[in-house]
Structures are given as structure tokens and as C-alpha cells.
């Protein structure tokens, strides 16, 4: 990969790593609470639909999805290399496109809310 591309893939990776470090455990905790029957108020349909209907929340949710998926993709790419899969260009293309596709899907769903 050309050197000039590095900051573009690495920047969102670092941002996503930081964001998931701060956010992912508490998000999992919220759905786990719901799973055990103690549904947090925010996860009630009316509340969440109203919340996700606001443009700022849509932006934040899409941002969380993008950065989480991108940092996953980047780490997965490095891990593939560590595990002996050295077709880096192919791996990079697949994982980054998958991250963008997931983000695109979330944007489409958010637009429907």
C-alpha cells in the first residue's frame, strides 16, 4: 500500500479504537439489561424511535457504527497478516468494503426512522 494512504486508514482506526473503548462495554450492558428483562427506558420503542429520529442522534449513531466497523476492519486486516494470510491488498479491500457496506446499511435504516 502506498505510504500516503496510511493516515486515512489509520486515523479512523485510532478514533474507532478510542470510541469503542469508551462506549462499547456500556452499550453491551444496556442490551444485556434488556436481555434479562430489565429493559432500560431508552430501549422502549417510542423513546428510541423519537431519539433516533433526531438528526444529531442519527449522525452520532452512524458515526459510532462507522468508527466501530472501521477499527474492527483494520484490526482484522492486521490479524489476518499475523495469522499468515499475506494477501494484504485483497484482505484490506474486503474488510474495508465490508465496513463501508455496514455503515451504508445503517445510514439507510436511519433515514427510514
Amino acid at each position, binding site marked *: 500500500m502506498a505510504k500516503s494512504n496510511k493516515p486515512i486508514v489509520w486515523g479512523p482506526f485510532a478514533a474507532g479504537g478510542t470510541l469503542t473503548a469508551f462506549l462499547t462495554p456500556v452499550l453491551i450492558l444496556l442490551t444485556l439489561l434488556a*436481555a434479562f428483562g430489565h429493559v432500560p427506558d431508552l430501549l422502549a*420503542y417510542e423513546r428510541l424511535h423519537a431519539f433516533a429520529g433526531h438528526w444529531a442522534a442519527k449522525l452520532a449513531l452512524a458515526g459510532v457504527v462507522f468508527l466501530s466497523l472501521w477499527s474492527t476492519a483494520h484490526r482484522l486486516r492486521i490479524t489476518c497478516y499475523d495469522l499468515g494470510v499475506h494477501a494484504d491488498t485483497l484482505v484490506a479491500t474486503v474488510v474495508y468494503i465490508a465496513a463501508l457496506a455496514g455503515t451504508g446499511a445503517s445510514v439507510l435504516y*436511519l433515514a427510514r426512522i
Partner: protein
Amino acid sequence: MAEEMSRKPYVREMTFRWIFRHPRYVRYMAREFSCLFIGAYTLLMVWGLKQLADGPESWRAFLECLQSPASILFQVLALGFALYHSFTWFNLTPKALPLQVGEEFLPDGLISGAHYAGWAVVSLAILYLAGAF
């Protein structure tokens, strides 16, 4: 061309057995594998957004899916790996963000400690705002 250049080329080992040669490597891989769980959980979130967009019935079905034993097992594993990612990430912050004040660098514990404190505040604030307690 490679054949002409080297009489006895070194063929690099192409397996993942190196992981088990040292506990440090296992911890490194555990950290790297946390991304699979964080990524899968994010996809679960994306699916949740779809169900939310589809209406109240679909959202209820989503919440019911969260309650299945397989889903709970996944979420517990994901929580474990997500926490491992958070701890390893915050422990690295003094390396990534060394802060110099005057002649001295701030002690490592202060920088990672500030991140841990911020993490606790953010988590509690989200739990509170989401009405978890």
C-alpha cells in the same frame, strides 16, 4: 529470478503456532480478537436499527431475540472482550499521548487514570440517561 538470487531461500513459517510460544503473544491475540466481538456487536446494532425502522412489532421481535440463550452468551462474551479492549487501550494511552509539563513528563498512571475516570463517567452518564437505573 528468485531462484537465481538465492541458493537456499528462507521460507518463512506460515502458521499461527507462534501465538502459543509465549503468554504475551496469547494476550496480544486476545486483544486483537476483541475486534471480532466488537464488530459483530456493531452489526447487531445495525440490525437493531433496521428493526427499529420497520416498526414496533419488529422492534419487539428484536428485543425478544436479545433474550435467547445464544444471544445472551454472545453478549456476555462480547462484554468480556470489549472490556479487555478498553483496558488494553487505556493502558497504552501514556505511550500514545505523552504529556510534557515544563521539563517533566506527566506520570503514566495519571494519563491512563484520567482515561479510566473519563470512561467511568461516560458509562455512568449513559446508563443514567438511558434510564437503566
